[in-house]
């Protein structure tokens, strides 16, 4: 589904990601773990097509197509999703209207407001969000936890083929973490969404069980393994995983 081969990424001329290979199949959950500055978020942003991240080498195919040729909008419509670490606040943009707009584009049909609100309400219930939320402005004045829930809500609405969750767990309390995990697991089970979980901490992995764990340091994946690798990391810390 998503295949990354020898990917190198520069920011302002500096190489941050130095040759990554990773393949995520439909329905799989991969955890990408590593300390701050290891290049995890850079990878996430570049996969979604952020204009300031320059791909200097490598290939990414998504569903058999060259992902790097697509703009962010096309990547989204093709079924890629990124849950942002720091989602933007967009003043004056009503959440229900916005989500209906992007939903209709993604599914290529026209769901009218009343029907869409019903769908949205169901998804919000999964995430334990109050209905009033749908008439607030997108992320405006939201707490950190509310923003993360809004990201997951968008994911549930867009039903991506591959979802990248960039530190969605950071800043969440245990209850919120459980709710977010429930949303991710549900989509993974019902829509066979492949997931790339980017995180510092192993605690998220107690709620979402990954098929594979990768440890990233200094722009490279230094070790890959099964769920047990997370336990090893928990015990030994990142310093045990030198290049």
């Amino acid at each position, binding site marked *: 589904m998503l295949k990354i081969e020898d990917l190198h990424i520069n920011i302002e001329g500096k190489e941050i990601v130095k040759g990554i290979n990773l393949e995520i199949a439909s329905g799989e959950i991969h955890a990408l773990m590593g300390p701050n500055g290891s290049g995890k978020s850079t990878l996430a942003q570049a996969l*979604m*097509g*952020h*204009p*300031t991240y320059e791909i200097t080498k490598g290939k990414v195919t998504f569903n058999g197509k060259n992902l790097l040729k*697509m*703009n*962010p*909008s096309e*990547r*989204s*419509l093709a079924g890629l*999703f*990124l849950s*942002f670490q720091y*989602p*933007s606040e*967009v*003043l*004056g*943009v009503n959440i229900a209207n*916005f989500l209906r*707009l*992007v939903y209709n*584009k*993604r599914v290529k049909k026209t769901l009218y407001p009343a029907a869409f609100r019903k769908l949205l309400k169901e998804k919000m219930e999964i995430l334990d969000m109050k209905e009033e939320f749908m008439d607030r*402005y*997108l992320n405006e004045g939201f707490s950190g936890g509310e923003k993360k829930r809004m990201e997951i809500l*968008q994911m549930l609405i*867009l039903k991506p083929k591959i979802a990248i969750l960039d530190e969605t767990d950071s800043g969440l309390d245990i209850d919120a973490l459980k709710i977010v995990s429930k949303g991710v697991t549900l989509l993974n089970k019902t829509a066979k969404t492949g997931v790339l979980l980017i995180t510092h901490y192993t605690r998220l992995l107690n709620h979402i069980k990954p098929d594979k764990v990768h440890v990233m340091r200094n722009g490279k994946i230094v070790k890959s393994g099964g769920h047990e690798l997370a336990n090893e990391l928990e015990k030994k810390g990142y310093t045990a995983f030198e290049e």
Partner: protein
Amino acid sequence: MTNQKQKININANYKTKYGFNVAENYVYKTEKGLNEEVVKKISEMKDEPKWMRDFRLRAYKIFKEKPMPTWGGDLSKIDFDNIFYYLKPTDNQKRDWEDVPIEMKETFEKLGIPQAERQHLAGVKAQFDSEVIYGSLLKELEDEGIIFLGTDEALKKYPEIFEEYFGKLVPPSDNKFSALNSAVWSGGSFVYIPKGAHVKRPLQAYFRINAQNMGQFERTLIIADEGSYASYVEGCSAPIYSADSLHSAVVEVFVKKGARFKYTTIQNWSNDVYNLVTKRAKVEEDGVMEWVDGNLGSRLTQKYPSCYLVGERAHGEVLSIAYGGKGQHQDAGGKIFHISPNTTSSIISKSVSAFGGRTSYRGLIYVSPSAKNAKSRVECDALILDAESRSDTFPTMKIDESSANIEHEATVSKIGEEKLFYLMSRGLTETEAMSLIVSGFIEPIVKELPLEYAVELNRLIELEMEGSVG
């Protein structure tokens, strides 16, 4: 990603929607240019009382004497000798739409008037160049004593009201353009809302310039008597000529004790119109005045609706929204004068500039020594869409009373790459993302507009791709 250059172009289809004109077919047209004879001729054509004729001539003198203001936009290109000051399109105002001459009827029907009337409005006035050519008012409102007339007709019917109020709030000597308007005024609306009357649906006026090199100088006088409530909406547009036109109106609103009045303007003149307007309200005890002022069109607009809060607890509000596109300068804002104790006010301004356009916020908050515990809040936000465009802020505060509570906030933002990326990552194109950001930015003001205007404004934020799609 492909490096597309996409921008928003409000009014991209102005030409087809508003920019048409019909053949000039006038009953009477003064010679080009302005002199005492032209002023006298206008008064004579209108068969006015002597005091109005004298008022005009006095105003003309003041206009001649006053220098051209230089503090705002560039007015140096206005050629007062190359303008027609009075064009009479038809013999009299029609009450029945069927009687309106065909070319005018077609013009207004193309603009969506009076379809809107049938659905949402309490009454309508349509002005074509110098004169109000059509007017109507719901029968039940007429029976309640509500008056909604063209200003010329009202002067004939209610001379005593005019002697008391006309030119009292905006005297000819106020500024060069109020003097010009006072000398050559024609058309406009007269509104009287009797004591305690509540008019739920808005009264609407539509101002259309049709002729080339036309000057439109309507004069609007509104009196909201004690405890009454009403709202008034006006729209404006003109054909596209390469020659300049001038629109210079004066609006006076008297809000009596405990009354509430809301005045909404959506100005969408073509880009060759100079729009220089003086709007002022006097608000008495417990009265409320709201100005909603939308400036989308014109080459240069200079307009700062103001409120004189003369009665205790009077409240004044200005909501201003401006779009400055290619070759446009919107110099807009508001002024509030706190004269009495416990008066409150707010000015909220939102402007968007693009394609090398320019917006300026210009505002004044004055608190006189007699205005104890005055409270005011000013918020002005500017959004600049590209590097060629410009926005300035000129806020003035004159606070002569120490108990005043004044807040001022100003922001200038550009459409951030992060925000665009965020929205695009949800499947929107760059243009769609930009349009969403712009409509979100102006949303707080759009929601204050009557429905059909809000829909219209949202439609105006249309998108145009520029440059290559990579």
